[in-house]
């Protein structure tokens, strides 16, 4: 069926609410408004205000309440409008959700799902555009996933809800309108492995979330020049599927890591380090990275575009590695 990323997330939410009475959705404007990105439109009418709960603008408390409800055996899905606002609940995510199992000696589980939008590309300026998922991927005790395809937007939520640990789902805001085909019987997918989205032999383009499409566009351009790029979608940012990363790099002997986060101290730095640790002698060239410029995301379109990883820059980095630069 023809659908969108937004619709796919909504299908997943609807299925979760219908299937399990422990599941409820909570967040700012998820109910009457229908979700900031219109993801949850119609769910309030379908499931009622007890299970689709509009919250005050109190990120720390409604995320903490999600943690508390999960501790008590519920399966809350908490929506934080964007990762930028999640800094108001960083304490609850990092000091509670991630630590409770350990601090309690394994007694307290937090089977919570937190969804948030991330990323730039819509000219909404610095306080609504950043990609901070790499920070969260630093924290032991939480899992971090980034659906980049319609199939993953549809299927990752069920796996996240089935997980006994807190899972953060990062939906790139520019992807909600993405259109594509989804199998009628599309269902749950794993949240364990990276996926090769395009096979190739000359260079690996490692991307996730909002940069997957750009990496695929770069691979198209490279193919026209005779360079066969493999595109690896990380899918899960913590725990990283290091085996899949290393396997791809061993095939191609070159890697470009693409990350919408800033380069310094980033997820791309982690991926690069893992490649160096695990596949150094398989490399024919140093690992390259294409990240956001080290600047808060600016408002004007031309500057925003210049600040973000773009297909041209990814292709250029790949060309340099294969000696076509």
């Amino acid at each position, binding site marked *: 069926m023809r659908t969108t990323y937004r619709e796919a997330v909504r299908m997943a939410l609807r299925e979760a609410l219908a299937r399990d009475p422990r599941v409820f959705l909570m967040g700012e404007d998820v109910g009457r408004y229908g979700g900031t990105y219109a993801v949850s439109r119609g769910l309030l009418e379908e499931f009622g205000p007890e299970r689709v709960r509009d919250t005050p603008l109190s990120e720390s408390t409604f995320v903490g309440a999600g943690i*508390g409800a999960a501790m008590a055996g519920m399966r809350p899905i908490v929506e934080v409008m964007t990762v930028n606002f999640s800094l108001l609940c960083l304490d609850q995510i990092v000091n509670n959700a991630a630590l409770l199992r350990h601090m309690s000696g394994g007694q307290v589980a937090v089977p919570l799902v937190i969804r948030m939008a991330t990323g730039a590309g819509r000219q909404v300026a610095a306080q609504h555009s950043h990609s901070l998922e790499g920070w969260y991927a630093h924290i032991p005790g939480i899992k971090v996933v980034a659906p980049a395809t319609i199939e993953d937007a549809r299927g990752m939520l069920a*796996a996240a*809800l089935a997980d006994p640990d807190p899972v953060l789902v990062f939906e790139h805001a520019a992807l909600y309108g993405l259109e594509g085909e989804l199998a009628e019987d599309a269902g749950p997918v794993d949240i364990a492995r990276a996926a090769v989205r395009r096979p190739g032999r000359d260079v690996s383009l490692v991307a996730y979330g909002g940069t997957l499409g750009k990496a695929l566009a770069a691979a198209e351009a490279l193919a026209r020049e005779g360079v066969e790029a493999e595109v690896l979608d990380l899918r899960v940012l913590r725990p990283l599927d290091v085996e899949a990363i290393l396997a791809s790099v061993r095939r191609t002997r070159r890697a470009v890591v693409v990350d919408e986060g800033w380069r310094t101290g980033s997820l791309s730095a982690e991926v690069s380090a893992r490649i160096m640790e695990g596949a150094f002698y398989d490399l024919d060239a140093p690992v390259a990275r294409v990240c956001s410029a080290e600047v808060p995301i600016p408002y004007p379109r031309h500057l925003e575009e210049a600040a973000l990883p773009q297909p041209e820059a990814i292709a250029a980095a790949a060309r340099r590695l294969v000696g076509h630069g």
Partner: protein
Amino acid sequence: MSEPGTAAVPSREHGLALLSDMLRIRRLEERCAELYGQGKIRGFLHLYIGEEAVATGAMRALRPEDAIVATYREHGHALLRGVPAAALMAEMFGKATGCSRGRGGSMHLFDAGRRFYGGNAIVAGGLPLAVGLALADRLRDERRVTACFFGDGALAEGEFHESLNLAALWRLPVLFLCENNLYAMGTAIERHQAQLDLTLKARGYATAAESVDGMDVLAVEAAARRAAEYVRAGEGPFLLEAKTYRFRAHSAYDPELYRPKEEVERWKQRDPIPALEATLRAAGLLADEDVAGIEREAAREVEEAVAFAEASPWEPVEDLLRDVYATPEGRGGGAP
């Protein structure tokens, strides 16, 4: 604030039980302080000495099915909730037999089976958890109370205000218990709060509130019972403030430069333990041998706990990475 003396004189049995509870906490913590000096307990050790009437009175209002969220000054709360003293002491030693397998220490006592959810060391960080525990009860139609203890320092945190507002907005069954010991670590309440009347803060969030003398265990118990009944009846949250005082330093690292010794001495005159003893004696309900018996039992409990902790094994270093995720390193995550 409730008028002093409004709580009726308890039965002999009940009076002795309250006295015993307070003394058990006091003796346990006095021993903890010694053990800290000997290096057996490390890290931070926040003693409740002086404040025992608050937990003792409040716990009497709670039932086994209720949930408790406490702070890092929670040894007494855990003990009265029924966490064995041995498991508490082993936890403070960092032993594998501790109530949190030794991973938490003094500030992170947990007992999920008794619905004792920490042991939370971020000031006010436990309030949203309590709101969530109560929300779960509400969604499942469980008539239970979640009691959330916090100090006056939490009043300045955003989470206090957010949590009161949300609990009141959704009429959730949370009993907020402010243990106002007049200091946020070393900052006196008049130096961190513009409005000292806590019941007014609660009113700002359409929440029922009462203030009680936290040095009077009978008054605390009576107020806590009223408050818990209100919450259990589905009327929404309740904020109970107990005015109390910490006799010891904030933690073992505190040189106490911020408060005059005379102030501490003045409050020690109001020590809740001798105060209850006096009440019971005046009513003819307490004899010397009763006190001796309680002391003997408390001492035995403490020494058995210490012996257990001493004899307990350390967790093997090979287990370092356990209990971060449900599975090693969070592996798994297959499609359900």
